[in-house]
């Protein structure tokens, strides 16, 4: 609270007898506007009420693996927004999948092929693998993210009530992002079973057919048909402990950090008990091999006069598209604020969320782009936002690598 007070003093105090914190509450829009567009005479830089530059994110910290009863966990703090994520893995037996018998026969062959292929060319993933990952992870609901806001994180959410619209929307956004980024490999979630040898003749015959299908050079231990006996289901629960704006970035970062921390025990099909048995030995457990590192960055747009654009449409005498554009492009009518806090979120309609990853050559890869609530962000602005998100990616990678 000290920073806005210090910043506000020179710009607004002469005309007001109210302290800046009161003014911020009574006239939030004018307060933020005064910070972002200081009078030219004052020679001050345009700065947000919270003391950040428009494209500056809040201080972020992450800590992984502190919760005992999880396979992977993380706490991420972005400013005053705190998200705790715990990943719990449970087992889904194929016997419990109603539609399994139909699909298993068709997939077991190609599964096999892909498993072998992966060993030779790890980077070059085929189309059929994508299709299969999608089929298993999405159709069988192997990823179960849920976000809870009923933790007393902000005054508006009643604890004990069913999830609010915001919580439902955030859970769904996390789910769809997990699916669309293909972050988790279905192969990490499969539990295989290799039936014992059925005698040399059957084995030989099988070897031949297998050799024709795949390129040679694989060991004979791969020759038996393996079958999937079960899947790991990852319950990804995010508790927003403290909400001060921009919950999605914090929640996603927590999910990402927790998944990077997740260890799945070695599991096998126990034929005697007809169940899956796991080893609790930590040296046998394996981490998930995630695809890339998608980092989310959210922005909100603060407009000096939010009604200006609408007025131009509603009032018919401003037909000239160019004149309207000219007005929109006028000097500093809008500010795109990175990582908005709760105060700024309340003052803006238009939001943009970008999820970017970086390819090996350092180029930004856009995995998701979402923009809604207004029309003042144009292509040029979005291009700039991708750049900012790319810088944010570097920062987040450093933070996540440290935790």
């Amino acid at each position, binding site marked *: 609270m000290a920073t806005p007070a210090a910043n506000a003093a020179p710009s607004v105090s002469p005309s007001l007898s109210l302290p800046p914190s009161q003014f911020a509450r009574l006239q939030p829009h004018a307060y933020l506007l005064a910070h972002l567009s200081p009078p030219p005479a004052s020679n001050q830089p345009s700065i947000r009420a919270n003391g950040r530059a428009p494209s500056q994110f809040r201080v972020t910290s992450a800590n992984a693996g502190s919760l005992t009863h999880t396979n992977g966990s993380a706490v991420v703090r972005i400013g005053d927004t705190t998200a705790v994520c*715990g990943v719990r893995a449970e087992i889904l*037996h194929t016997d419990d999948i109603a539609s399994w018998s139909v699909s298993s026969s068709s997939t077991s062959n190609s599964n096999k092929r892909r498993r072998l292929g992966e060993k030779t060319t790890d980077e070059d993933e085929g189309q059929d693998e994508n299709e299969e990952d999608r089929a298993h992870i999405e159709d069988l609901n192997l990823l179960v993210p849920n976000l809870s806001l009923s*933790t*007393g994180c902000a005054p508006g959410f009643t604890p*004990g009530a069913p999830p609010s619209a915001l919580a439902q929307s955030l859970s769904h956004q996390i789910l769809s992002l997990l699916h669309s980024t293909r972050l988790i490999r279905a192969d990490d979630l499969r539990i295989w079973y290799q039936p014992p040898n059925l005698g040399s003749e059957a084995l030989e015959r099988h070897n031949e057919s297998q050799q024709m299908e795949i390129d040679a050079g694989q060991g004979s231990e791969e020759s038996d048909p393996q079958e999937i006996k079960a899947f790991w289901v990852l319950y990804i629960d995010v*508790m927003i402990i*403290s*909400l001060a704006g921009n919950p999605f970035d914090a929640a996603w970062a927590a999910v990402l950090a927790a998944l990077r921390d997740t260890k799945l025990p070695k599991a096998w099909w126990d034929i005697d008990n007809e169940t*899956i048995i796991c080893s*609790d030995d930590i040296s046998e457990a394996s981490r998930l091999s995630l695809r890339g590192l998608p980092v989310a960055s959210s922005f909100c747009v603060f407009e000096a006069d939010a009604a200006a654009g609408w007025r131009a449409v509603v009032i018919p005498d401003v037909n000239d598209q160019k004149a309207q554009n000219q007005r929109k492009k006028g000097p500093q009518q809008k500010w795109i604020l990175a990582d908005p806090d709760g105060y700024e979120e309340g003052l803006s309609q238009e939001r943009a969320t970008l999820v970017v990853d970086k390819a090996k050559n350092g180029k930004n890869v856009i995995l998701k782009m979402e923009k809604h609530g207004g029309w003042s962000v144009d292509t040029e602005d979005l291009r700039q936002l991708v750049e900012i998100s790319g810088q944010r990616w570097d920062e987040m990678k450093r933070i996540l690598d440290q935790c």
Partner: protein
Amino acid sequence: MMADRRRVNGPSGGTRPAVFASLAESGTGVSERAQRQRQPSELRKIFLKTGLIPTASGSSYLEFEPSASLAAARINPKSLIPPSSALKLACTVHGPKPLPRSAAFSPNLVLTTHVKYAPFAARKRRGHIRDASERDLGVHLETALRGAIIAERWPKSGLDITITILEAEDDRWWADAPDSHDASWGMMNVLAGCITAASAAIADAHIDCLDLVAGGVAALVSDEEKQSSAAPKLMLDADPAEHRSIVSACVVAYMPARDEITELWLKGDSSKASLENGDKRSVHEALLDGAVDAARGAHTVLAEAVRESLLKTVG
């Protein structure tokens, strides 16, 4: 059961928790029960910090020191099964705020308490909807706090206290089979933590109280193979994972300045048990005294945390 359409549901067929080989083939001696390293009257260290959640009027975060075995397992992990667990919870206070228009007139502050376990808080995955034990904890917590808050200073107002438990205490050692004198002992430690944390959060919200109310637990434990062979021992702040069986346990919410107990919860059959030689007190009295001693210990931490939060707001 109807699927909850407001949440992301897992596979419709349901999933099963992992079964570990070391548990299935018992007697391999892979792991041993954690031993209590503390003196009988020594409490675990408590980490308590207030004001971590700026959007709430008051907040606190409480964490128990991990037991020696858990700390060792963290530093040098061998098994995926944690030997014990340490309480971690966050508490927020919202209010005092006006009651909704529809609410009946109340001359006092209306206290609402919610205690919720995170789905990943315990060994067994918890549901998203509060179950009976969570509601029970909420009621116990409300009783404990109601006696401490000076409620008549806020007529027509409400105070919401929400506790999220990120990691709960175990009810027993993980490899022990649940048996007849087995109850949810972990809940009692959780309640004591909830009381202490809520008290700090209320002080952080500047709500007038008679005194800082602190929670304490004492338990009669027997580590012997046979039940009747030896008298059970009185342990303060007993971690159920460290003992073979708990005969009886007691939680109090205690205000040292007034020497007053606002909440008392005694569980287990202690009528047959007798204390070690020389102790003339009845078992109930001994348990109660032990719990009060534990609460006094927690109170020193609580007072320190509140002093810190006060210095932060003043300075």
